[in-house]
């Protein structure tokens, strides 16, 4: 958000709404109404005095109405832009003509009660709509007593109670009596998967995981260890990457998962707490008291969905979400208008962020012609040379809401920092990363002539670039900076030992101060960006990425190991929305093969990769399997997309491989496509879900099998309505609008039978018939089903990527799926800069999501390709005078960045040998430095003296 607020090429219009649209894709005129803020944004310094003096209190919508805000306010501490506003509906002066307290006290005269509404017209080529969602209001479900009993609250309200920046600073108290609740129940699917009293037949996709997260944070924030937390659910839907592991961990933390649904919530004594009655799966009726109940409310379409759709002229689906196809997932039915996030369907952060990038890619394709015609570039002030100055260090200690200050005594750390050598300024901030703090840091640098900065906060992985930018804006070199990670490495892991944590935080700050005193200005090497993309993998994801690059005019090389394009999609029938996959994939293959910007190389593998972001070079082997005509070629490219795909798993369970009637879903799809006759003659088909999935040897959920089986079942019922179809499952995970298919299947008479891993189905042959025995938990009896076909949902595994891992130095998770840099913030970036990941190699996902991810990769890669040259990391090796050319380092360098060269010593005629380092290849790993016996090669930013200063500081408290 801060980055968005600071970006030169992003103009923010707040308090604004679209009132009319005209024109067409490529040339829209959007009329925007800017409501008055009544505070001059140029004059407001966000001091907060207006809020302090404002006498009018109103319910704070940001805290879900739990707390109060003023009529002069900011929405929350990290608001972007950080400018106050006056709420005209509640301001006493604007409603009654009296007061003006804010105006009296505002130190900069920013209050302007004469501010008027403004109409502006904006000319744009494309529009991206992401208006978000409307949380479900459970007041209509009278049996839950929401609004009537104080201790029945929504999950959104609970989220605010849990939040460090919320009304109770993260220490949860229940509304009725302000006491900390110990026994809390979550009820899932409130306002989701419900067509009685609500219209929301869809699954909101996010509630299972957020409920789990809330239980986990509750346990972390709670004072004692006596939390008693229960989640009442229908199906647990932990179908995302690493979600199943999180689910298992949550069970291990003692959270109770109860597959039951209370009928009514009754108030406790004196309307404090609640009582609920529920029937467990084994038929026991339990009456239980809880301190508090959280209703896990669903995410519906935004209130203004209808308004937006009529203004822009695009279609909504039956739930009023923006309607799109699986093949063009972010394009609305109106050309040039793109839709993302929860406006398209309820979803969590990773997919929303991915979709946002995908929409940016579609916009970039559409506007490729006018690319760079309006962009602005940032200009920094000339850097102050501090090399001759004595260090003057400023230390900023972050509370991170209460993330840090809850455990670490930050005030003590600040006081301590003052005592350290060269420290001339210290300060504590609620959020050091917020926009206002950046302004503050800059100000303090100037006021105190600071030339070194330490931020004691979180991880440099996420925040170092932001602070470095702040330094540059203040005229300092970005490397005169250090972070002490007192959150991830401290408060998060030492919650139960606050005193020791504070001591450790001081140690961390002392180390950072010692090091920063040794820091010196570094310059980044610039390399020319090769305006070319390489895509690895010719499946749907890879092809989509290649087309998106090509359509923006970037030369693209698509490398496919096999002898044809198309991948798994060639074997699939329909998307969940019913679109024909075969037809679509064939047209994509044709487009890719005929695209003038795309070079398709089949039967090709990658042998090596050198260089770095913006400037990679790979050796590729064409026709490698055919050693006779194999050809090795070198290609240069600026960015790479890895889309090596996945494959259907196999199994040895349930008679698979011993009987042709037992098959995988892909094989059964062929029957569905081609052999209606035998299906019409058949009597029974049984599906078994989670075959080999969600078990210790393959703990993840393959995400797409439930929908696939449900869809197949519907097709079966269409072919032959009399067919008996049974789907044996552990949870049905038809997330989002896929839930409609689940409903459709049930309505068609498909029977769903749930099983637990300790009561798996028993499949055997009896008189050459296939029998499936299964325990039905509702009847608590065994069923024996004789079936004509048995379909085993064996799930998805990633294709083996070991070779590429070695070549590109990227990582995979425990299940072998390629890792993204950050699951939420950077969902398609790989940890290696310049590489991006899409499709099944990252995690099992349906077509719609693979396409989205592929587009998102192109958008992210486009940020690099849009530049003519690129700055490299400054953390690189350099050779010192002490190098005598022994070349030990060459052997250890994994990036082939070092060479040995001979040269004449100062014209003396003596030839000496010395190491030369190629900064474009060097990744700054430091192996050379540690191998060198004589300080002949060092790493900038991590020199031996810098490290020694840090180590000495660390040992100071011990020795």
């Amino acid at each position, binding site marked *: 958000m801060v980055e968005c607020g600071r970006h030169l090429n992003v103009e923010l219009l707040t308090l604004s709404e679209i009132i009319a649209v005209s024109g067409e894709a490529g040339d829209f005129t959007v009329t925007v109404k800017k409501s008055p803020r009544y505070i001059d944004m140029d004059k407001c310094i966000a001091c907060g005095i207006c809020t302090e003096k404002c006498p009018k209190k109103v319910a704070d919508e940001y805290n879900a109405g739990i707390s109060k805000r003023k009529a002069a306010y900011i929405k929350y501490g990290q608001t972007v832009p950080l400018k106050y506003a006056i709420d005209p509906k509640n301001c006493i002066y604007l409603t009654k003509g009296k007061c003006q307290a804010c105006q009296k006290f505002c130190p900069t005269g920013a209050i302007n009660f004469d501010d008027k509404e403004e109409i502006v017209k904006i000319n744009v080529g494309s529009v991206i709509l992401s208006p978000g969602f409307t949380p479900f209001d459970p007041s209509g479900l009278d*049996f839950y007593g929401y609004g009537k009993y104080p201790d029945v609250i929504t999950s959104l309200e609970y989220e605010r109670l849990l939040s460090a920046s919320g009304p109770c600073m993260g220490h949860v108290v229940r509304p009725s009596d302000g006491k900390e609740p110990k026994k809390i129940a979550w009820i899932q*699917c409130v306002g989701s*998967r*419900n*067509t*009685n009293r609500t219209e929301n037949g869809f699954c909101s996709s996010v509630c299972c995981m957020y409920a789990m997260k809330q239980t986990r944070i509750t346990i972390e924030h709670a004072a004692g260890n006596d939390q008693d937390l229960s989640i009442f659910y*229908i199906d647990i839907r932990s179908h995302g990457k690493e979600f199943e592991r999180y689910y298992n961990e949550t069970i291990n933390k003692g959270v109770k998962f109860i*597959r*039951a*649904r*209370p*009928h*009514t919530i009754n108030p406790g004594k004196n309307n404090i707490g609640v009582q609920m*009655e*529920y*029937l467990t*799966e084994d*038929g026991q*009726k339990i009456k239980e008291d809880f301190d508090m109940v959280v209703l896990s409310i669903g995410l519906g379409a935004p209130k203004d969905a209808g308004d937006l759709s009529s203004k822009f002229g695009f279609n909504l689906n039956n739930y009023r979400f923006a309607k799109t196809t699986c093949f063009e997932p972010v394009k609305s039915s109106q050309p040039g208008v793109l839709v993302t996030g929860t406006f398209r369907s309820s979803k969590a952060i990773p997919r929303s962020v991915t979709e946002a990038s995908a929409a940016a890619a579609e916009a970039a394709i559409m506007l490729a012609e006018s690319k760079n015609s309006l962009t602005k570039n940032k200009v920094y002030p000339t850097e102050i040379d501090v090399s001759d100055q004595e260090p003057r260090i400023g230390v900023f200690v972050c509370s991170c809401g209460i993330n840090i200050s809850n455990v670490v005594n930050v005030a003590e750390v600040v006081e301590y920092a003052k005592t350290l050598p060269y420290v001339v300024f210290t300060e504590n901030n609620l959020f050091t990363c917020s926009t206002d703090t950046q302004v503050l840091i800059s100000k303090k640098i100037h006021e105190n002539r600071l030339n070194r900065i330490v931020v004691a906060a979180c991880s440099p992985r996420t925040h170092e670039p932001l602070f470095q930018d702040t330094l540059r804006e203040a005229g300092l070199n970005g490397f005169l900076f250090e972070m002490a990670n007192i959150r991830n490495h401290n408060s998060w892991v030492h919650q139960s030992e606050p005193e020791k944590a504070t001591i450790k935080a001081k140690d961390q700050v002392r180390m950072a101060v010692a090091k920063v005193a040794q820091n010196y200005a570094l310059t980044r090497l610039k390399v020319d960006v090769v305006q070319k993309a390489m895509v690895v993998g010719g499946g749907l994801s890879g092809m989509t990425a290649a087309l998106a690059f090509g359509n923006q005019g970037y030369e693209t090389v698509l490398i496919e190991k096999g002898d044809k394009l198309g991948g798994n999609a060639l074997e699939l029938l329909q998307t969940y929305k019913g679109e024909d996959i075969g037809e679509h994939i064939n047209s994509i293959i044709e487009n890719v093969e005929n695209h003038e910007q795309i070079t398709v190389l089949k039967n090709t593998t990658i042998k090596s990769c050198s260089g770095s972001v913006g400037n990679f070079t790979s050796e590729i082997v064409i026709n490698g399997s055919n050693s006779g005509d194999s050809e090795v070629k070198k290609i240069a490219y600026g960015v790479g997309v890895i889309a090596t795909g996945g494959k259907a798993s196999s199994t040895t369970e349930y008679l698979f491989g011993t009987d042709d009637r037992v098959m995988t879903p892909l094989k059964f799809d062929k029957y569905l496509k081609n052999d209606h006759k035998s299906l019409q*003659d058949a*009597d*029974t088909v*049984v599906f078994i879900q989670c075959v080999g999935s969600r078990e210790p040897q393959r703990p993840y959920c393959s995400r797409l099998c439930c929908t696939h089986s449900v869809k197949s079942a519907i097709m079966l019922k269409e072919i032959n309505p*009399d067919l*008996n179809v*049974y789907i044996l499952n552990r949870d049905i995970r038809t997330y989002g609008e896929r839930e409609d298919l689940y*409903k459709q299947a*049930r*309505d*068609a*008479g498909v*029977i*769903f039978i*749930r099983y637990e891993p300790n009561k798996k189905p028993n499949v055997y042959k009896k008189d050459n*018939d296939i*029998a*499936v*025995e299964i325990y*039905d938990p*509702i*009847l608590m*009896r*065994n*069923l*024996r*089903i*004789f*079936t*004509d076909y048995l379909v085993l949902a064996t799930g998805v595994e990633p294709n083996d990527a070991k070779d590429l891992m070695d070549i590109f130095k990227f990582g995979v998770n425990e299940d072998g799926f390629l890792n993204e840099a950050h699951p939420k913030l950077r969902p398609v970036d790989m940890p290696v800069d310049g590489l991006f990941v899409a499709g099944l190699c990252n995690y099992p996902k349906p077509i719609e999501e693979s396409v989205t991810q592929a587009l998102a990769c192109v958008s992210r890669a486009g940020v690099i390709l849009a530049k003519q040259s690129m700055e490299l990391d400054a953390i690189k090796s350099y050779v010192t005078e002490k190098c005598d050319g022994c070349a030990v380092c060459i052997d250890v360098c994994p990036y082939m960045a070092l060479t040995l060269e001979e040269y004449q010593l100062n014209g003396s005629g003596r030839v000496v040998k010395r190491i030369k380092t190629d900064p474009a290849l060097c990744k700054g790993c430091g192996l050379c430095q540690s191998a060198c016996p004589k300080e002949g090669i060092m790493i900038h930013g991590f020199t031996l003296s810098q490290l020694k200063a840090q180590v000495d500081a660390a040992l100071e408290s011990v020795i």
Partner: protein
Amino acid sequence: MADEIIELGRKHKAKSDSKVEEKEKGIFNTLLSKFNKHQQPEEPQKAQKTPKKSIFKDKVMELLPQGGNLNACLSCGACSSGCPASGLADMDPRKFLRMAALGLDDEILKTEWAWMCTMCQRCIYVCPMKIDIPQLIFQVRKSWPREDRPKGIRGSCDMALKHETCSAMGISEEDWRFVVQDIAAEVRETQPGFEDLVAPLDKKGAHFFLNQNSREPATEPDEMVPLWKILHTVGADWTYATKGWAAENYCMFLADDECWEKVVRIKAKAVDDLQCKVWLNTE
């Protein structure tokens, strides 16, 4: 029975087909003949294949709007958590519906649990899929031979048919008139402020036609008084009738459509005869 394995799918039907049909004939009675016309004749070339037979639930679905959503169950259990009859006879609404879905017609058509349901509709009220379990139960009740249905309910229905009062307690028109007039007189004499209270009978053209559960006049006549006082105090224009005044209708609980209708028609006629605008049923 409950410990036996339940056989489903292909082979099961081929083997036990004739057996099921026999049972159905015994149990479904009139229902079967009504639905028989929907069955497809067996095609000779598919002799190998089991003919698809509608199970009881499917037949009920044909009767109800949207099939009563009987297939839509998510098995969440909200119905059973709130059902006052859960656990009785080792049954609950979810289990009952599940048995119907799996075609265990034998068991659902026989279980006495069908008569333990109070028809309160708490299940459908909270059901995310609005599944009409009460209607399923009703149809099960209907499938029972009348003489096998619970004596208490059947007796009350039969009693209501004896008099035009429709009273399940068998209160005659004369007894009813006497009790109402007697109690009203007593209130006027003994309760200050209600000296002119009346409990009108057969007042033509009154706005409200008030029904009365016959348990009160039969056993606790004083309990009728509070409502009279309210109506008196607010000045409501109301009347009791001598015919069709009893509020209860056990024939509905008996799932005896014909008698249920008969009772309702008597009551409706009484309302019409007195030309009342609003029919207030206090049940």
